[in-house]
Structure formats: C-alpha cells, structure tokens
C-alpha cells in the first residue's frame, strides 16, 4: 500500500538524485575535454547551460558564459538549477519518505548534501572541483547501490526506478543532442558522414561516452573505431548499456508491469520506445538531430505527465 504522495516523493527523489549525478558527470567531463581541444575551438561553457536546458535562468543572472560563471551556476549557486539545489530537493524528498526507504538512505543523501554544500565554493577552481564531482558521482552510486542491495522490491522501489530511468533517458538524449550540434562539434566533416573526422572528433566522442561512463562498454560491444554515428546509435538504441535511452525505456516497461493501473503510462512509454528503436541513425545524422531530439524529449515529458495523472495526488 503506497500513498500517492509518497509515490510522488520517492519518484522525485529518484529523479533528482539521477540529475545530480548526471550534472556532476557533465561538469566533470567537460572540464577535462577542454584541456584536449585546440585553443580557439568554438566550445564554450554555454553549451552546458544549453544541455541542461537552463539558458533563460542563466542569461538572467550572467552576461558572460565564462567557466567560473557556468560552474557557479550549475554547481554551487542556489538558483533552482544547480547540483546543490537538486541535492537539497533530493534530501527533502528523502526526508519526507524516510518511512519507506532503508534507514541509511536519508543518512547518505543528507551526508552528501552537507559535504557538497561545505565544499561547493572551492570547486570554482579545477583541482578541488574534480575531487568534489568525483565524490558526488561516487556517492550517488553508493546510494543506488544501497537501494539495489537493501530495499525490498516493493512499489516504492518501483517509483524510485521510474524516476531514475526517465531522468536518465532524458539526460542521455540531451547529451547526444549536444554531441551532434554545432556547438559541440568543431569538425564539420562528421555530419557529412566522412570516414575520418580528424583527431578532435575522436576526442570529442570519447568524452561524450565518458560523460556516461560508457567508454569501456562501447569499446567492448561496438568494436568499431569511435565514430559519431556509432556513438549516437549506442547511446540511443543499445539495450544492454544501462545509461542508453533504449535500455531505460525498456526498464520503464518492466517496472510498469508491477504497478496497478499502468495502462496509459505503458502506452506512452511504448510509443516513445518505438520512436527510439525504429530510427535510422545514419539518416538522422544527415537530416540533423535537432527536431528529432525535441520530439523525443516531448514524448519523455508526456511519460512524466501520464505517471503524475495516474498515481500522484491531484493538483489543487
């Protein structure tokens, strides 16, 4: 028996924690990527703001998308879009659902929140930033590990997974979007399908994969040299890699089977899944990805609304 309100809060806990981890991954990889690219590459920090969909809020606060400003905005500042904000929200949701989670869950999130808060200011400079971000990622994985190892496979667990998988699918599409857009691709040749994209394409796509901890798994399973097309296919359509969009949509389908009244949600997930699976990637890259990713994100948003309408408390 799971209260609607509790279902909503554990769902958001799952989402926010995943968002914390993904944002930390993005910042971490981006900070390293910059060191490898030639000076003058048109790779601004503003891209991160675009990937996270926070342009309006950022532009309201800052004129320059400098490293310092973007890091502050996405990491330490309390503006509704930073890692600290998401951690505070995850903590608040965990605090109000302590009765359905393993005891250590709140304690770990609470601890992570305070640690991030205490060190967020120092992370403006690159050295401490690396340590903090790696620590945040490790702690998020620890929390996921705790839930995997110590939480009953009950309805609350299902809602944590719904939140986590949906958020993950969403972030993966954003990263693919960024990887193929002009902003992140200094190499024109990639879009023309040319075999050799040059040395920087390689670096770029390696980092895209790294941002999802996907590099080794890609190497293992794709066995091709790193090409944009294959990376996009891997991140969108791979069923086995747990951060790939298709894998997460399949997870959603499996979780939904365990929940009551899930028909409408399942319909929407299936629709989204088809959109991902049946897509010819080669063709997509030639046409340009922008429109497609927009559609995909709208479908993912629709999944959320179906979930909310089915199980959460009606909005007053």
């Amino acid at each position, binding site marked *: *028996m*799971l*209260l*609607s*309100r*509790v*279902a909503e809060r554990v769902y958001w806990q799952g989402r926010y924690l995943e968002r914390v981890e993904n944002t930390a991954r993005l910042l971490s990889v981006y900070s390293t990527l910059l060191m490898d690219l030639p000076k003058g590459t048109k790779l601004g920090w503003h891209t991160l703001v675009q990937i996270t969909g926070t342009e309006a809020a950022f532009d309201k606060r800052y004129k320059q998308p400098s490293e310092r400003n973007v890091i502050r905005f996405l990491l330490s500042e309390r503006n509704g879009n930073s890692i600290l904000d998401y951690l505070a929200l995850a903590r*608040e949701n965990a*605090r*109000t659902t*302590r*009765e359905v989670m393993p*005891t250590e869950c*709140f*304690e770990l999130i*609470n*601890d992570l929140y*305070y640690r991030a808060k205490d060190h967020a200011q120092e992370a403006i400079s690159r050295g401490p930033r690396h340590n903090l971000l790696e620590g945040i990622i490790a702690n998020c994985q620890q929390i996921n590990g705790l839930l995997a190892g110590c939480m009953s496979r009950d*309805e609350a667990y299902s809602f944590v997974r719904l939140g986590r998988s949906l958020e993950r699918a969403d972030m993966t599409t954003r990263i693919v979007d960024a990887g193929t857009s002009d902003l992140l691709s200094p190499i024109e040749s990639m879009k023309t399908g040319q075999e050799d994209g040059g040395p920087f394409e390689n670096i770029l796509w390696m980092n895209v994969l790294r941002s999802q901890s996907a590099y080794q798994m890609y190497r293992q399973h794709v066995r091709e040299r790193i090409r944009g097309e294959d990376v996009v296919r891997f991140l969108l359509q791979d069923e086995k890699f747990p951060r790939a969009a298709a894998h997460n949509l399949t997870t959603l389908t499996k979780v939904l089977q365990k*929940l*009551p*009244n899930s028909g409408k949600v399942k319909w929407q997930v299936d629709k989204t899944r088809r959109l991902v699976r049946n897509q010819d990637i080669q063709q997509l890259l030639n046409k340009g990805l922008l429109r497609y990713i927009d559609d995909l994100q709208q479908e993912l948003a629709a999944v959320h609304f179906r979930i909310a309408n089915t*199980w959460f*408390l009606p909005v*007053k």
Partner: protein
Amino acid sequence: MRVNWKTYNPGDFYDELISSPGYARKHARQLASYLKSLTHEELLRKKNAAELAIKTMGISFTVYSDAGNIDREWPMDIIPRLISGREWDRTSRGLEQRLQALNCFIHDLYNDQKILKDKVVPSELILDSANFRKQCVGIKPKFNVWAHICGTDLIKDKDGQFYVLEDNLRVPSGVSYMLENRRVTKRVFPELFENNYDIRPVTEYPTQLFDALAALSPRNVKYPEVVVLTPGIFNSAYFEHSFLAQRMGAELVEGGDMVVEDDKVYMRTIDGLSQVDVIYRRIDDLFLDPAVFNKDSVLGVKGLFNAWVKGNVALANAPGAGVADDKVIYTYVPQIIKYYLDEDPIIPNVPSFLCIDKKQCDHVLENLHKLVVKPANESGGYGMLIGPQASSKELAEFARRIKANPRNYMAQPLISLSTVPILGDRVVEPRHVDLRPFILQSDKSYVTAGGLTRVAMVKGSYVVNSSQGGGSKDTWIVGDD
C-alpha cells in the same frame, strides 16, 4: 584536565549525581568515576562525535522565526542523567495512576458529569474552558479512554522528590528524541553499556505505541491500518512524526492524503482508496476537520469528526482530551485521583494558586515577584511569567492580565529545579533539568523507562524548551529491577 567532583558545585540545589562535594550518589558512582577517568579533551572529542552523528542521522527540529523556518540539529548533552530503578518503579506507578484518573475524568465530563454534580471540580471551570468540546458530549470511545498518549512533565525540587509540573494530553512531543538520544549515547559511550551498569532499554516504545493504537481499531481485522497524521514538513515536530511512522511501520499521512466517504476514512494510494482504522493525529483538535472546527484548516480532513463519532475510525488522542491538561484543571488532579480511584496521588503536584479563587488571587498579586504565573492554555513555555526574573514593567503587565481574566491563570512558587552535570567547554558544570516520561493507555498501560530529559544549557536558567535554547540528555534508569 579531568573532572573534579570536589569543585563541581551545584550550590543550593539538589544535584542528582553528587550528594556532597566529591561524593556521587550510590546509583551514580560508576558514571562519576568513569567520567573522571577521561580527560576533558577526550570528553570533548566524544561530544563532537555525538554532534556529527546527530547531523548525519538527520535528528533535527524546526525553529520558527521571522527569517523563516530553520531546521536545526537536535541539541544533546552527552553525559547521561541517572535515575535509580527503585525510584522509577514508584514514579511510573504514579504516572499510570494519574493518566487512569484523568481518562476517567475526561470520560465523565463528556458523559455523566458526576464530578461536576458532586462539586469536586467547579462546573464553570469546565463549561467555560476553551478546551471543552461540546461536540464530544455523549461519545464513548473504546475502553472509555480519551488520552491514549500522555507526556507528563516532572521536576525535582530541593528535597529530591519528583513533582508533576504539568500533563500534556493533546499532542505531546519529544519521545523520538528520547529514543535517538539513546542511540547516540550508545555510539559515544559504548563502554558504559558493556560494563556493570544495568540500563533499562527504551527501544520498545514504538512497538508499545503501535500495539496501543492497533487495539483501538474499530474494525476487527488482523492488520488494522494505523496512520500518523502530520501537519507536514514545516511543523516543528515533523522529525518525530516521520520517525514514529518509520518505527511503527505505519503510514505517515497529511490531511490531503485522506478523504472521508460514507463516514469512513480512506487514504489515497496508488491502488486507489484504502480504508484507515486508527489515526495517531499530531495536529490540534481545531484543525482536524474544517466541517466541525476551524473551517479554514487545510491540515485536516473534511468529515473526519463525524467518522469518529460514528465509530468508524479511532483518533488518538480523542478530540476534546485537552480539557484535562488545562493548567487550572491541573490543580484539581489530586482530588480527581481521589474521586475516581479512591487512592492518594503517588506523585504530588507542585503547590499551586488558582487566580479564579479571590483569596488565592490576592495572594498571587501580592507575591507576583516570587511566583511563576502560567496561562491555562499555552505550551512550550510561552506566555509565562517568571516573577523573580521579571522587570517591574512585566510584573505590572501580568497583574493587569490576571485581573482581567483570572480564570486563565494559575501561579506556583518558583521550584528550585534539580541539577545534573553537563559538559561545558572547559569544565563539567551543573544545570537545571526536567523530565518528560510518556505514558500510554489503551487496552493496557505502559510507561517509558525514564523519558526525555530537557536541560537548560545556560547557567542558572530554568528554561528547558528546545524552542528557547534548551538541550536534552539521555536518561538512564539503572539497577534494582
């Protein structure tokens, strides 16, 4: 530097650890010598460890302020407070006796009103009371019990005896901190639990509470649905609401989670509506049901009161139970015990003066600077006057208030609260304490082993409320079982 019990000086007060300079009371000797075996630096390290544990475990309470609500870490002093088992056994019988009598009293007030007819308690005190709920007249809750959970504040005077300072029959809080204090102490002083001390465990409270609540279920089902109703995360006791729900395995609900249909209460779950049998409500009577009480309340559930009247759901504590924890009614409790149980009170009241009585009121007004004046209906130490510490302006203001509404005030001499040692930055020093044990009454009674000790952390202060800078201590009942 180490603790020197010879220079530890409680002055004119009864100290619970030290009987005379350098000598610990019998049941406290081991603690006193253990503390002496540690350097002050070691003690401070333990204190830091305790603070860290409290922060990580998220043991907090909310302070309301102009700047918004602040979630603060729970303040706990690491030196436990000791009470001997023999003394506690007697006290605990006294607490059960008191709650039993109070429940007879409440039930009588809403039914036959014999005690008023027999003029043991003046009927105008009840009928004019802001806490007498006319809507409850004629209702007979299961076991005739109205106050199922009671937090009674006890203090020790110079004579070292326990006195009852007040009864809290509405939504007394603090029990989660009693449990968490013990958990922290176990982390900080594990060696004390290994040694010879026989410390009575406190951990069974949530189980006892759950059993007491489940026994109230109107439906005869194997697993009645018990829920804890909280006003939400902004309430100062939210931590406790969540904690008790966790420990009981009960649902933690807010008003918006429930709905009443056909005089039955349901909660909204992902499977649809599911019936609720027992509500441990942690919101005040007046917010329970906008259809009956405060119509602007968004914390409660419309139709809840009627569902209770119809006997389709149990409310703990029952609406209207607060009629007996009025501070003026308090002064009649000894007579109430005698009247219903034909027994003498085991724990005495603090001597009190009733302002509603002309003679006593004159005495109060003449001696205001020596007395503590309390309004009938406030809790948390608000609206009180501590005469010996008040300015002449405050004294005049209170005299005016008392004259304007004598029914609303009672006065007591300033009790010289007992002291126990706390760990200061440089030395171990005496501070004043009180004690809030928790008593359950349903199909049977239960009293916690000890309770929540609150301590005034400021030297010489009597203010123990956590909302006003008080701290707390783990409380040990030791030996003699």
